[in-house]
């Protein structure tokens, strides 16, 4: 294992922030795995840390295939993680809205540019990411529909779903989108929770990356059987949104199979406890996403149901 400093952000008040890359093997730039780009992506950091520990053992046992290499970047935002802020604190910006970056630009753009320069030379790119809303997903692989996406390859992670999503305007500055345009086969993995460690989802995500690396001939290691993946698109997902605001009391959780009309959550008046709204499943299917905050505003997506 080689430790590379990908980029350093010197700080006046604090220690310098070094963005570290952990490199395994030599030769073809086969796969890059990136963890936290936001200060609250704890689960993403955790999965990467465990992946580094795993690959260290694989390398020790000669399991990195000749002529192949992997790099893991657990976090690009350690300074904000230490300070407890989601965004890049000095400029209050989202690094994942600054790609492909600008080496001569702001600090955020420089971070994005340094990451992009280092990681876009890899054949496959895996980003462990969080959703722009608070909540939990069924672990899945996601990619944007850029015309260059390869969902069949995404099935090699062995997760139950590969979600191909139509990009919105704001998505065009994300790593996944820019990676694909630079020629890297890019996949985003949603690893359950974000702000806390979810051991089961972390295990599942870690196994998926190991499976992919084995499947692509990058490493040779013990692996578990994956599931047969189903490729889904926006049309397969139905959103259940709130019509009221208040406290959100969920009775179903991500992954639950629900029947059409089944109760999913109650929105409660936060002052008198009265039930303002009962959210029900619009179709029979599986809960793909749940909003897990205590409060809910009006018109907010609370669940995403994958119809069966």
């Amino acid at each position: 294992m080689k430790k590379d400093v990908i980029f350093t952000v010197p700080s006046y008040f604090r220690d310098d922030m070094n963005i570290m890359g952990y490199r395994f093997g030599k030769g073809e730039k086969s796969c890059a795995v990136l963890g936290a780009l936001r200060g609250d992506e704890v689960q993403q950091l955790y999965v990467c840390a465990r992946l580094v520990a795993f690959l260290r053992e694989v390398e020790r046992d000669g399991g990195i295939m000749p002529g192949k290499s992997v790099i893991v970047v657990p976090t690009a935002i350690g300074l904000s993680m230490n300070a407890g802020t989601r965004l890049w604190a000095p400029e209050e910006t989202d690094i994942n809205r600054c790609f492909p970056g600008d080496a001569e630009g702001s600090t955020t753009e420089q971070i994005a540019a340094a990451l992009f320069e280092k990681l876009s030379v890899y054949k496959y790119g895996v980003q462990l990411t969080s959703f722009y809303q608070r909540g939990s997903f069924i672990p899945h692989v996601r990619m944007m529909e850029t015309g260059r996406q390869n969902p069949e390859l995404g099935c090699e992670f062995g997760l139950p779903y590969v979600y191909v999503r139509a990009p919105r305007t704001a998505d065009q500055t994300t790593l996944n989108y820019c990676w694909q345009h630079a020629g890297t086969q890019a996949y985003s993995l949603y690893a359950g929770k974000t702000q806390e460690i979810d051991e089961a989802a972390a295990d599942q995500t870690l196994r998926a990356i190991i499976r992919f690396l084995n499947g692509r001939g990058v490493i040779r290691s013990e692996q578990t059987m994956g599931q047969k993946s189903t490729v889904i698109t926006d049309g397969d997902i139905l959103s259940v949104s709130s019509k009221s605001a208040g406290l959100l009391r969920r009775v179903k959780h991500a992954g639950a199979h629900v029947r059409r009309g089944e109760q999913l959550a109650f929105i409660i008046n936060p002052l008198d406890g009265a039930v303002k709204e009962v959210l029900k499943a619009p179709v029979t299917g599986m809960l793909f996403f749940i909003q897990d905050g205590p409060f809910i505003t009006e018109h907010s997506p609370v669940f995403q149901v994958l119809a069966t």
Partner: protein
Amino acid sequence: MAILREITDIASVKMPIGETWTVSRCRYRSDDGAKGRVCLATGIHGNERMGQLVVYDVARRIKAQPECLHGTVDIYPMLNAIGLDISERMVPTGTMLDMNRAFPGVQDGTALESICYAIVQDMKGADLVLDIHTSSQITSELYGVRVHERHADAMISGAAALCPEVIWVLPDKPVHNASLCGALTQEDTHAVVIMVDERRLRAQMVVDQVVDGVFCKLRELGIWSGETKTAPAIQSIPCMWDEKDICRVTCRRPGMFVPNERNGSEVAAGDVLGTIFDALEGEPVETVTAPESGLVFTQRRYSAVYPGTLIARLCRKERA
């Protein structure tokens, strides 16, 4: 002749505890059947409050001379009302998203997406939308008009009527397309960003300059018949057509930055823009100088800096 004044809620979202986030519009409309319509929006970023004073003064002038209005002026003062209340740039619900990266929004989307959608739907079709922003706490900006590249040819000469100190053509990049101005441009509605300096000690003077420009533009569009200042010739306004017209000056060292006040002045190569110091060592660590000559139209104020922090933007003299 009278004007009709009407306040309408164009979008609202109920918050968890007894509050509604409402986007309201105040419409001033003449009763002479004139069709022209200009929208003034502000408060997308909650830490930018100078727009409040701009639209307040616009409303005051309209009400003082109602007979001079011939058309519609729509004012949207508080797009990110919760952010404005706590002086937070982002929308302080959920995961702190930048409202100006969420346009054009989605009709049945999240609270933020549905509000952005409603704003665009309400403004599209106007003759002109002015999206008023103010410089942040840590930068000082000349009064500028920023025009989207897609409409630049059609709008540059008209932008002069706003009497700005500089005009800047924003490139057709995804980051700009997700802004209010970018989303309206996609809808073929002319929209520009107005950048107002938030130098509080001279707030009224800065605002007067912008409000004078707004009325000058309204007059050009035939919406205002009252006296206004004379619009400058476009040739007299430094205009940055693309990124090559701008010299960005950044620093190399972290520390505390103390500016030499240069904004609005021409500098020569080597002129000092400010100094970075280290209080622990008690030493200056970097003197930031202009790498070439030009007009300073953005300058960093006293603040902490990192390597790469923008210290100044210069409009390149020879291309102005």
